[in-house]
């Protein structure tokens, strides 16, 4: 998925929030304010922190499975074995498709 810049994300979020607020049904808009810091502050802070949190979660994933996230996996012995096994499997199936085919007369 595309990762937007923090600024773009902030602007987009702000727009969505603004439009959403305008379109909010009157009954919902009249709800009491939540017991937290102001909405604007919350959005701003979280938006600024967001890229960091994404990076953190992504690097966690990479740390646990380093081989399977990039093409370098196929340079490892396991990766080579995968390519060989896959190639053999595809090759034999292609051979089978050609040689085991029952060809109907009149086609």
């Amino acid at each position: 998925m595309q990762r937007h810049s923090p600024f773009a994300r902030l602007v987009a979020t702000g727009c969505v929030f603004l439009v959403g607020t305008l379109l909010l049904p009157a009954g919902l808009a009249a709800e009491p304010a939540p017991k937290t810091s102001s909405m604007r502050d919350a959005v701003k802070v979280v938006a600024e922190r967001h890229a960091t949190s994404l990076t953190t979660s992504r690097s966690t994933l990479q740390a646990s499975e380093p081989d399977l996230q990039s093409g370098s996996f196929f340079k490892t012995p396991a990766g080579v074995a995968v390519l060989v096994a896959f190639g053999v499997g595809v090759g034999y199936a292609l051979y089978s498709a050609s040689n085991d085919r029952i060809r109907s007369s009149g086609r």
Partner: protein
Amino acid sequence: MVRRLTITLAALLLSVGTLASAQTQTGTITGTVVDAQGQVLPGVSVVLTGRTGSSTQFTDGTGVFRFVGLQPGTYTVRAELQGFRPYERANVAVSIGATVQLRLTLEVGALQETVQVVAEAIAVDTTTTATDNKISQDLLFAMPISRTNAAVNMLNYSPGVNSGSAFGGSANSANALLLDGVDTRDPEGGTAWTFFNYNIIEEVQVGGLGQSAEYGGFTGAVINTITKSGSNRYSSLFEHRYSNKSLSGNNISSSVKSQNPTLSSSKVDSLKDYTVQLGGPIRRDKMFFFGSVQRYAIKQDPDGPRTIRTEVSPRFNTKLTFQPTSNDSLTGTFQYDQYNQTGRTGLGGVANTTDARTVEQDSPEFIWNGQYRKILGSSSFFEAKYTGYWGYFDLDPITPLPARLNDDGSYSGGAGYSAKYDRLRNQLNASLNRYVQAGGTHNFKFGVEIERSKIRNRFAYTDGLFFYDVGGQPYLAYSYSYDVEGRNKRQTVYAQDQWTIGGRFTANLGVRYDGIGGEGSDGREYYSTNSVSPRLGLAIDLTGRGNSVLRAYYGQLYGGAVFTSWSRAVPGIGDYVIYEVFPGNRLVEIDRISGASKYVVDDDIDHPRSDEFNVAFEQQLARGWKASATYIRRESKNFVNSVLINGQWSPVAFTNPKTNQAMTIYRWANRASIEQRFLITNVDTVNYAGAGTGEATRDYNGVMLVLNKGYSNRWQAQVSYVYSKTTGTVASGAFSDVSSSQFETPNQVLINRDGRVPLDRPHEFKLFAGYQIPKIEVALNGYFRALSGTTYTPFNRVSSSRFNWTSSIDVQLEEQGSYRNDKLALLDLRLEKVFNVGVHRFGIYADLENVFNSGTVITRNARFPSVSISGNSVAFGNATAVTSARQGTVGLRWSF
């Protein structure tokens, strides 16, 4: 890895009544973020991380977030807000059509102190009225599930479905088979056409009850199969399965053999089935690939006199996924496969087919699917799909000689025929999902479907003739052939709303329009129906805590577009010519029946449908336990059949040969004064002049109890019991709703026809269970089912002259369903030992189907007093088929 797998399995194990409501291929995660006091928190950052990247939203003014258009799989949800400890919920499983509802509670604290939670495996959806069974790839991976035809076999593992008949619906032909969201059935009669590799399945949804308006084209069940895709992580699977004759049992007892000497156990001489798969990123977060290749080869010694049947099926699958932005997804899939088969039966069927009398089958196929998905923020998404396939199957005899029926009932010569069946199917689907807040939460969906299919069937006797021999010499010969063609046209529009009011009441409202037409090769429209089907459902969260729900549903379900309903009306059938055969094979024509169609289709015909009403209660009992009880009623209507136009009937006495009591049969009274012509029409009520009024009915009533136990303490299970009753005058065999000649005379309508239909099984018990054996760490998974036998009714084949009719008629001698076949109890097991090396999983497993080698008689001869099978006289009530014998299969697989 085994444990992870089994836990996931537990989460998805055929969980009846789990979250289900909306789109055919995707799911939704929605939720509310609150603080410790339960106050909603707006502006919270919610990050969803899946296999193909991450996506972020902020909660709205009511603390609600929503991710729509999600591919099935597991996700991690992380919520953050300044001043609160981040909350992370892992392993959130999204299934097809599921709406996962979360309530995330943020506690005051530092951002560094993340609260991590693993999602609850068993959950109750309090908003849907659908009852679905989700079968994940993990389940398919673990259970000893039959693989011969993945699309169809999945169905029979579900509660309420047996022998392809779902909740009293017609066997096989009444079920919609969706592949990546689009129906791929044979447009001729609605049975399975596309066969695919079992291992390409990501998840299967078997939807039967309470379906929303987007689901149509079925009066039984819907099987919705989603195929695997590539992701940011390279993944692969290599599997090889093997079996041979030494792993095949023989379950024909001497007593059964004495009843029917032609019976024998089918044996697998050799099975060699391998799959190689590879998927991963082409460009991270942007483009992904998935490729799968299978070669399935089996050699069998089948039932009956045949000694060999072979099948070699190479199958190639590719899928490319392109995500230009986080909100756009383009997918293209392609399959090419062949189904090369030898040993298929000749004229006379299984019991009369020797090796020399078989045909071989050539059937290549291309399947394509392109789709585009656009996510329009947190409240809407749009999907467009285009799917089609092209294929044919040709049957050619291996011995190019005409078939000969001998006067003792046996057959000789060659298979006796050749045939060619061509298919082309195209379908376009487009839909828009939109969530709206107005007097509650609405989840609207609007969709359009357009289907165009082409069918061509050709058949001819070998050398144009079929012989009837007397005393080993040809006596009569017949010639017959056809070349018929038709096109199905379907336009569908639907709208539905899942409207949640006050958090506890959800109304599921929908309406669907299907316009179905049939056009012959002459450009004439033969069939035209317009159907509007309402779907009304209500779900009530009884406690307000999301653990107990009461559901009610009423819906009208219309079948799919099929050629077979009107195919008898199109031109293309050759004359049926009868010859007397003289020495030197000199033929002298003695009768000729014109092939010109005698059938016309009623202009006011209505499409077959089933009306469904169900009430369900579902309760989460404790952590990991869930139970449900459902009452189901289905009533079939608009049966399509044919009736004699202007026919008059006169009752005549007939002595029941089984009871020696007098009974009445009906003779065609005005044969001399009218032409034999038939009207293809709805036969719900038919007035037979001089005989009485007949009705086409089939009603299903059932109670379904299901108990799920999620994985804990090394075991998990699902147990179900269904008590049902299917009664009526029309059986639930394939095509019974859409095409039959049963109503052409009153003799198969008014005489002993109302009763338990053949596929009625009052008692059904099914158990899936898995246990992880400690110390040796071997997974033991099993599937046990115990079913009532199907019914059968004694009949006598009465010659045409008794009825003044053009052919003999089978007259039932007792009330329909008066006899029942044996109860069935079968156990299948899988033992698997797994070795984990880093991320690599190596498994070795053994499957044992029919562990106890049960030889239950599943069908008996219903013809009274006897029938001739391969020259052997088989008396009424004697066995004609037994269940498949024990079969062992071993497998090796490597995956990561």
